[in-house]
C-alpha cells in the first residue's frame, strides 16, 4: 500500500501543492543546464522519511479514545485491553495519519479518480454497453397481459450452475438448512 502510494505521489509530484514548508519546495527542481546526472542524483530532493513523524513536523493530530473505539468498531476489530494498548494504538494511528494527510494534500482538482485500470477506448466502451441486442431475447419471452397489454416477465424456473456447491458446508454452525450466528449482548454496530 505505502509503496503504491509513494509511486503515485512521485508521479503526481508536479501537482503537489507546497502547503507544507518541508520537503515539497524542492520537488519542483529546475536543474541548471550545467548540472550533470551525478549532481542531480547526489542530493535527494525528497525522502520517504518526510512522511514519518519527526521533530520538524507540527504536533500530531489529537485522537480521543472514543474516536479510536468508534473506528475499531466500524472495522470490526477488537478493542484495546489496557490503557497502554490503547495509547499505543493511538500512536500508531497518528503516525499513519501523518502519511494519509500527505496523500490528501495532493491537489487532485480535475483529476478523475482511478477506480481500476481498464481499457477506456471508444471500442471498449462500446463493447461494454448493454444495449437492446443484449436483452432482445429476454424481452421476447415477455407476455402482454390484460386490457392494456402490459408487458410481464414470464415466470420460469431457472437452473444455475453457480448454485451447484454446498454453501452450508462453509458454515461453522448450522441449524437444519440455516446458517447460525450468535450476536453479542448488545448490538452496537447494526445494519444501516
Amino acid at each position, binding site marked *: 500500500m505505502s509503496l503504491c502510494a509513494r509511486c503515485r505521489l512521485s508521479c503526481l509530484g508536479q501537482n503537489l501543492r507546497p502547503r507544507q514548508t518541508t520537503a515539497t519546495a524542492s520537488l519542483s527542481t529546475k536543474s541548471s543546464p550545467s548540472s550533470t546526472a551525478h549532481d542531480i542524483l547526489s542530493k535527494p530532493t525528497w525522502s520517504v522519511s518526510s512522511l514519518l513523524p519527526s521533530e520538524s513536523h507540527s504536533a500530531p493530530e489529537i485522537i480521543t479514545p472514543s474516536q479510536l473505539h*468508534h473506528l475499531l468498531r*466500524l*472495522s*470490526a476489530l477488537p478493542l484495546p485491553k489496557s490503557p497502554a494498548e490503547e495509547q499505543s494504538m493511538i500512536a500508531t494511528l497518528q503516525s499513519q495519519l501523518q502519511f494519509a494527510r500527505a496523500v490528501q494534500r495532493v491537489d487532485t482538482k480535475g483529476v478523475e*479518480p482511478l*477506480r*481500476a485500470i*481498464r481499457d477506456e477506448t471508444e471500442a471498449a*466502451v462500446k463493447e*461494454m*454497453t*448493454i*444495449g*437492446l*441486442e*443484449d*436483452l432482445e431475447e*429476454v*424481452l421476447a419471452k415477455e407476455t402482454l*397481459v*390484460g*386490457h*392494456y397489454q*402490459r*408487458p*410481464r*416477465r414470464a415466470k*420460469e424456473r*431457472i*437452473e*444455475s*450452475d*453457480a*448454485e451447484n*456447491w454446498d*454453501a*452450508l458446508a*462453509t458454515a461453522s454452525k448450522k*441449524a*437444519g*438448512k*440455516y*446458517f*447460525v*450466528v*450468535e*450476536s*453479542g*449482548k448488545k448490538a*452496537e*454496530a*447494526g*445494519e*444501516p
Partner: protein
Amino acid sequence: MSRRSVGELSRYLLEGRISQRGCINGRRLSSRTVPVWSSLRPPYALRHLHTQPEPAAAAASSQPIHVPLRKQLKEQAKQAKKQGKKKSKGDSQTVDGWELTVGIEIHAQLNTSRKLFSPAATSFNDEPNSHVALFDVAMPGSQPLFQKETLIPAIRAALALNCEIQPISRFDRKHYFWWDQPSGYQITQFYEPFAKKGHITLLARDGISTEDGESVTVGIKQVQLEQDTAKTLAQTGSVHWLDFNRVGVPLIEIITEPEIHHPRTAAVFVRKIQLLLNTVDSCVSGMETGGLRADVNVSVRRTDDPSKKLGTRTEIKNLSTIKAVEDAIIAERDRQIRQLEAGGVIAGETRGWTIGSKETRRLRGKEGEVDYRYMPDPDLPPLVIGNDLVQRLQTSLAVLPDTELDKLVNHYGLTPKDALSLITLDNGSRVQYFYRVLALLESKLQAELDIADLPEVKSYSTLAGNWILHELGRLTTYKAGPLASGDLSFTQLGECAQVSEEDLSQLLYHLYRKHITGKVAKELLMAVYLGELEGGILEAINGNDLWFKEISQEEYEALAAEAAAGEDKVLEEFADEQKYPQGKLMYLVGKMMRLGPTERIDPAVAENAMRQWIERFHGR
C-alpha cells in the same frame, strides 16, 4: 314474518342490545337480503330457505315508528363533532406553528430471475440457502458478474418515475459489518446512480392530505441499483438463523427530495409507487410480502423561522405497511415538536416503529456518511446503458395507472374513487374483469340494437363498474355466513371463478335493457355466486318467470295520484320552484312503490310520473 325490523337491527348495531327473539345471525340465514330478495317468490326455487310470502315492504321509510338508521348515524356523528373528543386523522395532518418535512427512501425488490451480481436464482420461500453462488457469500476469489437482465425492470421503474437514465453509472461499496452481508459491504450506487431527476405527481383522487390541494409533485432525486441482504430469522436468546437466498437479490432504492409536508401525502406516495412499480412489472410483490420497504426522514421547523433551514432529521427505518408510514411520521413529528418546545434539541438518529405503537423508538445514533467509507468498487466496470435499450423500454412502457384512471373516469364515467378502487383491487385483476364484462355487455347490446340506437358508453359502463365493485363486494360481506363459499378469486387476466364474465354480462344486459329489475338481478347474482344456478341466467329468468312486466304509464299516473292523496302539506312544499324538495319527492315515490305492485315498478319511471303529477298539481 322472519324479517327483522329495522328498529331491532339498529338497536343491535348501535346500542348492542340483543333481540329477545333469538339470534339475529341465525335468522338472517333465512332472510339474508332483507328488502331486496323478497320480491322473488316461489316457485323461484333457489331461495328455498326463503319463506317470506308477503311482498316487499321493508325500506327504512316504511317503519315510521322507528327513527331511520341513517338519521341515527347522522345524529351520532353530530354528537361526536360537538364533543370533539376524538381527533380524527384529518386533523393530525398539520400542527399550528410548525412545518413538517419528509423525505422518503423506498427499497423495492426487482422482478428478475437472477441476482444482481451472480447468476443464482432469485426466489421466494424456497428451501433456505438453496440459491447461493460463491460471490453471494463473499467466498475469497469470487468476482461480481453484473446480470444484464436486471436492467429491464430497473429502467422501467426509473422511466415510470420520469427519471433521466444516465448513460454511464457506477457501483460503490458501502461498508458495514453485519451478519446479513457476508462481504462486509453492500454494493450500491452512491456517487453515480443510473437514474436521476425524476418526479411523480400525486393527485387529490390519490387521497393526498387536503392541505395539499388538487395535486402535489414530489421530486425523485435518484434511483440506484443495489444488493439486498440475507434474511435473518431471530431465534430465542441471541441466536439468529440466516438464509442467504436473498443476499444479492437486486433492489432499486428510490430517493425523494425532502418535499412532502403532510403525513397522509407521504403514505399516498408510497402507495402510488407500489402501484406504479407493479404496473410496469418492476416489482411484483408488495409491502405485505416484504417486496417493498420504506424509510422516512422526518424533520420539523417553526413556520416563522426566518432562516427557513430544515430542522435536524431523524430516520425511521423499515416501515412495512402504508398505514405505518403515516402513523410513524405523525408520531415522530409530534415527538420532535414536544422535544423542541421543551427546549431540547433533536439528535440525528435512526429510529424504529412497531405497528400499532404510539411512539417511535431510538435504534441507534445515526452513522454519518463518512462511517460507511464509501468507495468505488474496483471489481466492477462502469454500467454503460445503451440508448436503444432505453428507447425500446420507453416506447413499450406499460400504460400507467394515471392514464388508465383518466379513461375510467372520463370515458367510462366512473367516479375517481371507484376507478381507483377498481384498479387496486385484487392486485389489478378486478379491473381486467371489468374490461372483460364490459366487452361482452357491449357485444350483446350491439347484437340487439342498430348502430344508430347504441347507447352512450357511460350509460352501461357505470352500471358495470357499480356492479363489479359494489354488488360483487356485497357478496363477500356474507362470507362470515354459512352459505358463502369464501372470497371471490380472480386470475391475473381477470377471470373470476365464482361469477363468470359471461353470467354477469348477461345479467347486466337484461338489467340495462330493463328486462329484469335490480332486485331480481341482485338475487340472481347471489345465486350465481353460490353456484345455485344450473342452467344459466337466461334459464333461471325464464324458468321462474322473472321478467320485468312494467305497469303501464296510466297505472303510474294513477299510482302517483293515489300516493299524493291526503298529502296536501307535503305538496305545498313544491310550490316554490326555486327550492325543490327532492326528499319529499322521494317520500312520495316510496309511497307509490308501496301502494303498487313493487316488482313491476321502475323507481325512475315512478319518480318521473310523480314529478309530472306535482307539476300539473301546481299548474306548471
